[in-house]
């Protein structure tokens, strides 16, 4: 059952159109990867979905159109966006970041989820009162994901979660994402530039180039695809 259906999406910044006529479909409970070089439009795609930039076209989320909604309403309908660079509330504490994630939820939902995710991310529990800006990159990424999960979203958008992280941390990150999918059957749309590990946990993927979808296949096929291997996976 398709959770997110995108048809003919155009989006950009001011005069500049970045995405041209993008189609995409993500089934519930699936992990979908978006690959592409710098400037291909991956971040723009996520921003268009979460409503933080102007867009045109059709975006159906669980059957309802969200392409005309403000960012706040899109969030309220159950889409959590972890932006590039984490978007942590640097001045607030770790605990406060987590609580912020549950802004749209009730106090009791917040309490039980907080407990759940702090157990899932013990490192965060250790650093509850620490200022979020002083956490390491990997810890901030955990925090950003925890914050997004507090919304109880149906769809999780992740923009280059591995950016700036050490390889060993990245490995742990994707293991965590896979584990989250196990736990919650969360649907995820992950944008990544270097895609090895992302493809390993994903079901399907698309490749964006200059704002258009040039390749669309299952993750297994993409991993085996020579072009993809050469450009995005670093094989010669």
């Amino acid at each position, binding site marked *: 059952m398709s959770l997110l259906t995108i048809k003919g999406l155009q989006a950009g910044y001011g005069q500049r159109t970045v995405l041209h006529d993008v189609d995409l479909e993500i089934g519930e409970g699936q992990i979908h990867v978006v690959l592409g070089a710098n400037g291909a439009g991956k971040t723009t795609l996520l921003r268009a979905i979460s409503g933080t930039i102007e867009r045109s076209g059709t975006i159906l989320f669980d059957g309802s159109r969200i392409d005309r909604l403000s960012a706040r309403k899109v969030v309220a309908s159950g889409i959590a966006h972890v932006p590039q660079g984490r978007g942590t*509330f640097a001045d*607030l504490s770790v605990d406060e970041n987590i*609580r*912020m*994630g549950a802004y749209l939820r009730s106090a009791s939902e917040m309490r039980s989820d907080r407990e759940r995710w702090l157990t899932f991310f013990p490192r965060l529990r250790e650093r509850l009162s620490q200022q979020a800006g002083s956490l390491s*990159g990997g810890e901030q990424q955990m925090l950003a994901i925890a914050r997004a999960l507090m919304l109880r979203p149906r769809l999780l958008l992740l923009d280059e979660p591995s950016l700036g992280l050490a390889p060993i941390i990245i490995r742990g990150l994707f293991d965590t994402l896979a584990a989250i999918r196990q736990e919650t059957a969360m649907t995820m749309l992950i944008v990544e530039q270097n895609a090895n590990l992302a493809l390993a946990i994903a079901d399907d993927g698309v490749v964006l180039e200059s704002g258009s979808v040039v390749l669309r296949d299952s993750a297994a096929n993409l991993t085996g695809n020579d072009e993809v291997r050469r450009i995005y996976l670093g094989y010669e």
Partner: protein
Amino acid sequence: MMLLANQIMDGLADGAIYASLALALAFSYRSTGIVNFAQGEMAMLSAYLVWQLMAWGIPLIPATIISIVVSFAAGALLYVALVRPLSQSSVLTVVSVLIGLYLALNSLAGFLWTYSIKALPSLFPKAHLGGGAFSVSVETVGIIAVVALVLVLLYFLFETTKLGLAMRGAASTPDSAELVGVPVPMMLLIGWGIAAALGALSGILVAPRVFLNPTMMFGVIIYAFAAATLGGFDSIVGAVVGGLLVGVIENLVGTYVPWIGPDLKIVVALVLIFGTLLIKPDGLFGRKKVARL
């Protein structure tokens, strides 16, 4: 010795007034990064509103409450009408607009109520506490108590309520706040409303002491700038501590250093600011932005 204690108490009372205006400045700065140059004039108009309401027969306390509520609305309106439309422009432009507002409000007050001074009654009865050498006016204690109460309420709002957290989040990282569903413009609007209400409080507290006139807030806002700078513009605690320090030191210098005339008392502010900032460039309590590169 008793003179010193009295001077300190008076200094604390003045300081509490500077603190409430400094708090107002800190609020608008924290939420939108802008120092509201017109904050003092808005406070002055709030005080005039109380006077006018009383002239129309409304008693002091209700008039005060009405004025504070109206000021909150005015602050929110100011955000919507002037600050938000200019949010894409440079800070310099917004500051200039607020300077324009400062001039406009000052002139407006002079036009509506003339430049002659008026009396605004104090919220507190004319009485003294204590006896003998150490006696302090009820007003002095009252001012300190009121500001302390407001501080406690604000602390409670910000540190324990969801709204307060949302406001802090919206001020700290508006883009991320948007992504968790916080209505950011509304939060900023409330911030400016609270700032205006705090300003109103300072205006209403100071008017009985210096007599109501269109230029009465000039000295106060300068000291409030000094207080906020000293304490760190983005710190609530800093604004208050800064205010109290500035008030006490101003009083003590005025009393014990005879050659400082009224004009030069402001030099005290200069020395304080520059001195502290050279040691702590973000103010006493200002938070250094933590950034991991």
